[in-house]
């Protein structure tokens, strides 16, 4: 079925390109088995790692989003809300919070990389851009992570 306008045709082409590039063989014969065999048979290249990490972080964020929205129903009752918040102030959850930041940062920067590549079609720059994504998300996660864990894991050990 062909799209009508020039604009949507362009978008449509980009979409196909993306699907073919990103999903490879699993698009032709999609199943969990082909997915696993694809991962194990490919030499892990930058593009492959980027795609896999983008998918894993995206799915983790959806998982967190569901818990988050349902947890915030406790805002109906002040006492319930403070209980909910205190649970997430546990030191283990503070580490999980840093991991959440890491997932968001990687997914966001890599999302921007995908958008840039779709618009400019410079796939030979993929590797460089991917390293930029890794560097930027590491910096953001490290900086934000330090602020998050400071009162729990750093301040107590300062003189």
């Amino acid at each position: 079925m062909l799209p009508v306008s020039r604009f949507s045709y362009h978008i449509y082409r980009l979409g196909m390109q993306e699907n073919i590039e990103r999903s490879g063989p699993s698009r032709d014969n999609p199943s969990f088995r082909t997915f696993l065999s694809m991962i194990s048979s490919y030499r892990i290249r930058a593009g492959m790692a980027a795609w896999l990490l983008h998918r894993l972080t995206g799915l983790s964020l959806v998982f967190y989003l569901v818990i988050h929205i349902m947890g915030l129903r406790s805002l109906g009752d002040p006492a319930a809300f403070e209980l909910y918040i205190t649970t997430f102030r546990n030191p283990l959850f503070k580490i999980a919070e840093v991991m959440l930041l890491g997932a968001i940062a990687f997914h966001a920067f890599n999302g921007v990389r995908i958008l840039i590549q779709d618009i400019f079609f410079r796939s030979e720059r993929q590797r460089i851009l991917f390293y930029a994504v890794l560097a930027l998300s590491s910096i953001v996660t490290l900086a934000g992570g330090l602020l998050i864990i400071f009162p729990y894991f750093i301040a107590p050990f300062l003189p």
Partner: protein
Amino acid sequence: MSSEHGLQRIYSSRSGQLGWLMRRITGVGLLFFVGLHFWIQHMPNGFLATAEEYNEIIKGFEKITPEFADAIAKGKIREALPGEHVITYDKVLERLHTPLWKTVDITLLLFALLHGMLGMANVLGDYIQNASLRKVAVIFCWAVILFLATQGIVTVMTVGTN
């Protein structure tokens, strides 16, 4: 299945195109909204209570209800550590009092749900062979979007009204 069949399916998927475009648009929007959200809720700043403020607040709570007093006695509501910034009911209420913040939060909610669950539908579509099962997966994702959007909007709109 030959690779031509696989391609055929991509070419002929109209809803796939729409979902793809929506994921892109919401993705760009989320860059702003998730960035802002993480900044105000997870980083130390005025939208959270300082340790001193928080410890003062829970002292007040203790007097208000036996429920609070009990939770504090059992350590289920814990005092803030020095330098810690804590999300607390009062601060959330104060922020959500303004229509602009209500709008921002609901936009974030809808963008994240649409982006995440349409992404999920796409992922499921990659691994489900059966065409009607794929439809079921898409319908399931939309049902989750509707359900969670309702939950979230009710939370934002009714906070502080009881």
